[in-house]
């Protein structure tokens, strides 16, 4: 199974995990190619005839570096596409009633900055058999305490994922995935702090490649998170086939 993962800085955790662990999965014949660039550089992708190409040389270089030599993304050659991070936030609905019109319009607003959604809208339906979206990790909780995973305090997150899939991603043939339950903090709205400790910058061929993120950075996750996320994702894909 050939999987294409497109992402921004957040995908670094997944890429590092894939490079250093998950050997059993590789042995099963799963091949993953990462195409990544930091920040919102992937806004400079354009689509034509099944291929996503970079509009700038800088992005082209980053695609080539992160994928191991491929300077464009030929979507025809993949069984599964995952777009990860890319300013796609999890959604937590409020516990009050909203009309469908309000919900739909506000979700459009909420995801108007999602680069994953922008790229998704460029891809014709049916071109890639399975398309998944992984949202930015929930911010790590403030405490650096090593807490044990517990069940989410409420079902806001689940309701949010379901709503967003229904109204935003599934109409474009994609599925937004939850982050692994074991990574979610007790409050149901943060990632456990252990998953942000020691996170490293995405390698793109820059001077600061693989540098540790500042200690105050609670948005980026480490390899353990990446491993948990990929395991969770691949299980989902396998179950779905």
């Amino acid at each position, binding site marked *: 199974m050939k999987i294409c993962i497109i992402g921004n800085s957040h995908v670094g955790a997944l890429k590092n995990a894939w490079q250093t662990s998950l050997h059993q999965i590789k042995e099963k014949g799963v091949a993953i190619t990462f195409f990544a660039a930091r920040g919102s550089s992937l806004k400079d992708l354009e689509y034509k005839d099944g291929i996503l190409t970079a509009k700038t040389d800088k992005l082209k270089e980053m695609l080539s570096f992160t994928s191991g030599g491929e300077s464009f993304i030929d979507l025809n050659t993949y069984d599964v596409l995952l777009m990860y991070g890319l300013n796609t936030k999890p*959604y937590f609905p409020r516990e009050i009633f909203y*009309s469908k019109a*309000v919900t739909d*319009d*506000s979700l459009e*607003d*909420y995801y108007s900055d999602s680069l994953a959604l922008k790229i998704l809208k460029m891809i014709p339906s049916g071109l890639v058999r399975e398309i998944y979206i992984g949202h930015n990790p929930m911010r790590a909780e403030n405490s650096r305490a090593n807490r044990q995973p517990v069940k989410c305090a409420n079902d806001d997150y689940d309701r949010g994922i379901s709503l967003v899939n229904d109204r935003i991603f599934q109409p474009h043939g994609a599925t937004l995935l939850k982050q692994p339950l074991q990574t979610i903090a007790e409050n149901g709205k943060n990632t456990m702090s252990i998953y942000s400790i020691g996170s490293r910058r995405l390698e793109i061929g820059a001077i600061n490649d693989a540098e540790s993120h500042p200690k105050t950075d609670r948005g980026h996750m480490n390899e353990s998170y990446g491993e948990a996320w990929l395991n969770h994702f691949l299980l989902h894909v396998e179950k779905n086939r």
Partner: protein
Amino acid sequence: MNPYEDLPEKAFWRLAVANKSMFDISEIWDPKFHIKPNKKVATYGSCFAQHIGNALKDRGFNWMITEKAPDGCSEELAKKYNYGVFTARTGNIYTTSLLKQWTEWALNKKEIPDEIWEKDGRFYDPFRPRIEPDGFESEKELKMSQSQSVESFKESIVTSDYFVFTLGLTESWHHKDGYEYPMCPGTVAGEFNEEVHQFANQQFNAILKNLSEAMKLMREVNPKLKFILTVSPVPLTATKTNRHVAVATMASKSILRAVADQLASNRQNVDYFPSYEIINSPVFKGAFFEPNQRSVNPHGVNFVMDNFFKCLTNKYGVTERINKSRKGNRAKTADEVCEEKLLDAFKK
């Protein structure tokens, strides 16, 4: 020695008005309550009431919103769907009888009528006809939204410290079964039926009674609740009385002003803030109206609200906390959501 000799400057027209630029007129309000920034303030009423909430928010006060827009919703979208206009999504509450009606629904004293208006397969709430610009997709959705707003209105009554209400109109439209609409059926939505829909130009006693009863009901569930009344300075868009609209406006505003004065003068828990005077008094020369002499210019709105906070600060030393991200937008954000304006479309 006579009783006038010791009066403060503000008591004398020459000292308080004639000798000053209108921009230097001060002490126009002697606030009864020390509204601290952390106290919860609910705002409802006619169109002009919307500015009070935004001004509170801009100054770092605790404008209470019990029915919030969805997370991540832009300001424009929230406004399109009437979130963040009033504390709950009631739409304009123009009359004291409407305020009483909302209060009775919220406190389960009366049932919300089942009436729903339908047009081109969309459903409109007779009590909030413009709340969803394109109507609701089903009767069920409308009812659920209505219940949410009533529940959120109740929450604001029960949990707020101050309830600001802007009295807007005396003219009102009622169903023959006794309930009231915010707008005449057939204007914004619905169909007018002269057999069913009745006009009333409410008079002083009825307005006073309805407002007193609404306040009494609210204080039964929240005994610490205090009220700040204002009267909308905005003239009527149209009158159903046979009078000239200018005469009808003056009559209407005078009655509302008198009701507010009666309550504020006689009750410790009721205050009156003179936004009406700041815009309409000859002292201010009508300078804050737009050229149509009806709409209030955003600078006028800011002037009114600056006075609100200046008077509070002068008396209690309240430190307002300017919300920097919104300060620059103050003048720009003064356009209001106002169904009554739509009556203008019916002029011949």
